[in-house]
């Protein structure tokens, strides 16, 4: 498998007041196309920051971050936004659906940035909702759905524009075991059947077990690497 992401000697520091806080220092990571990697670690270990960097919503302080060989950290803000719209789907712990929009409208949001016409957008939305098994809830508002259903809508939104990469931040963190398993089944399906590369941050070993491999991050350093294919 060729590398979708290649991180070399990546450093990330934040300034908190007058103090500079280092999150990573010379981090190395390669994520191949079609990978499903779980990133685990204690709070403050840098998991979310790593996800931010991969998703282009935060910038590295030093080093190199390549996406399919292209120097991602050299992108301008507007090019990064375009790149994100085309290649990345985000799935958040708290779903982050727009409360005033119906499920289908939430899923349609990324397609507003494409040149698809209304009919084509509706078809894609239908397909995405079918994939997550929620087509019968298309006209429901988020408040009318359970947490698991909302997260499935969020997954449909993340994949509707057919991105290469899904970045999941604790996608099952707010769900009961049954709902969590259903979500993780969908993610595994997307990885295996649709070839989506998935990077998932989680505290839950059971969730991590769905991934092809798990990386453990502690204080900005990978402390253990596994190739635990399920």
């Amino acid at each position: 498998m060729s590398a979708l992401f290649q991180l070399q000697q990546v450093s990330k520091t934040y300034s908190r007041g007058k103090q500079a806080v280092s999150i990573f220092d010379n981090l190395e990571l390669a994520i191949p196309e079609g990978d499903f990697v779980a990133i685990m670690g204690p709070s403050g270990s840098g998991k979310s920051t790593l996800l931010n960097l991969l998703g282009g919503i935060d910038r590295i302080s030093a080093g190199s971050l390549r996406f399919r060989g292209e120097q991602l950290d050299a992108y301008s803000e507007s090019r990064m936004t375009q790149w994100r719209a085309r290649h990345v789907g985000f799935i958040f712990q708290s779903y982050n659906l727009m409360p005033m929009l119906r499920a289908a409208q939430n899923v349609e949001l990324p397609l507003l940035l494409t040149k698809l016409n209304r009919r084509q957008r509706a078809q894609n939305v239908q397909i995405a909702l079918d994939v997550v098994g929620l087509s019968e809830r298309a006209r429901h508002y988020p408040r009318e759905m359970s947490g698991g259903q909302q997260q499935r809508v969020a997954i449909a939104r993340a994949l509707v524009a057919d991105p290469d990469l899904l970045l999941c931040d604790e996608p099952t963190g707010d769900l009961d075991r049954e709902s969590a398993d259903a979500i993780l089944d969908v993610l595994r399906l997307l990885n295996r059947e649709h070839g989506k590369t998935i990077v998932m941050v989680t505290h839950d070993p059971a969730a991590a077990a769905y991934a092809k491999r798990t990386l453990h991050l502690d204080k900005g350093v990978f402390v253990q690497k596994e190739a635990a294919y399920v």
Partner: protein
Amino acid sequence: MSEFTLIRKNLLRKPLRFLLMYVVIAVAFLLFGLLQSVQSVMAGGSEANQGNRLIVSNRINFTQPLPYAYAARVAALPGAQAVAHATWFGGYYQEPRNFLVSYAVDPLAYLKVYPELRLGAAQRDAFLHARNGLMVGRATAERFHWQLGQHVSLASSIFSNRQGGHAWDFVVSAIYTNDKANGDEQAVYFHYDYLNTSRTFGVDKIGSIVVAARDAAAGERVAHAIDQAFANTPDETSTVNEQQFAQAFLAQFGNIGAIVRIVVGAAFVTMLLVVGNTMMMNSRARTREIGIFKSLGFPRASVARMVVGESLLLAVSAALGGLVLAGGVVALLRTSPNFAGLAMPPAVWLGGLGAAFLLGLLTAAVPLRTALNLDVATALGRV
């Protein structure tokens, strides 16, 4: 779904908040529409006056009378094509609240100076030959349901008559219309002689003299000549054109334009503060959502359109609501003869919508800056 749907859904997500802001703006623009309509009618009325007509009044104040003989002396001056005089009667019908714009005039001369007052030949003759004849504007005739030949009694808030009362009996001899758009159709006119021979004071005094000059340029020369002719007399004159006189007349009630500007300005600033503050709070509450839009790949331009679009949609739709309401109130008022000339011209609509657009842009300024500068990771609470 389109960006407009997003904007609309965002705006309507808190219906009560939307309703309150809508009402605040709509009421302010209702006020704007009504005040601007009144002002434009006043300005339009004075602009409709002919530039070559001059009003000669007492230099001390136009409420002070002039000697009757002045009319003939003015008529003798070169450049004065036609001369008439008018005396304010301060009349009302039955009770003071039925106030009437009423003048005692020399009928023949007056109709010559004011050719826009249109009445049939028979009515004209009747008015000229009846000593107590009353020429009534169409609006006033409709207001009081007066018919030709009807006897009416008008009281004066100024003059008393030799019978010891304030009431004068008249016969409605003519009902006139006005050829000019928004021209007056409310005033009533009667014979000066009738007033002069029966009043107990002010005999042989007149209120003002109206002079028709050949044109506006000639008018300036004639005005100067008139004031020169009466310089250093007990009753010096002040001669201005009709438009200046009308403006001076309105000024006695205060500067209408300034009042409108102050009221509208105060309403606008209040609105700006209320709506701007609400939009800012709204924007802060939606920081996370803006972060989500950005994380989905919505470019700055899209985010800007959503933020500005929401403010503009609110301001313009509410302003339009207020202006439509003002238009309705104006239309309703027009059914009353007292407000027959009231209208809401296109300039008021355009001015209102322009102000609404400005309001939308101003109230969007701070939320826009916040949204554009928003760091996605910070907005999503991921730092």
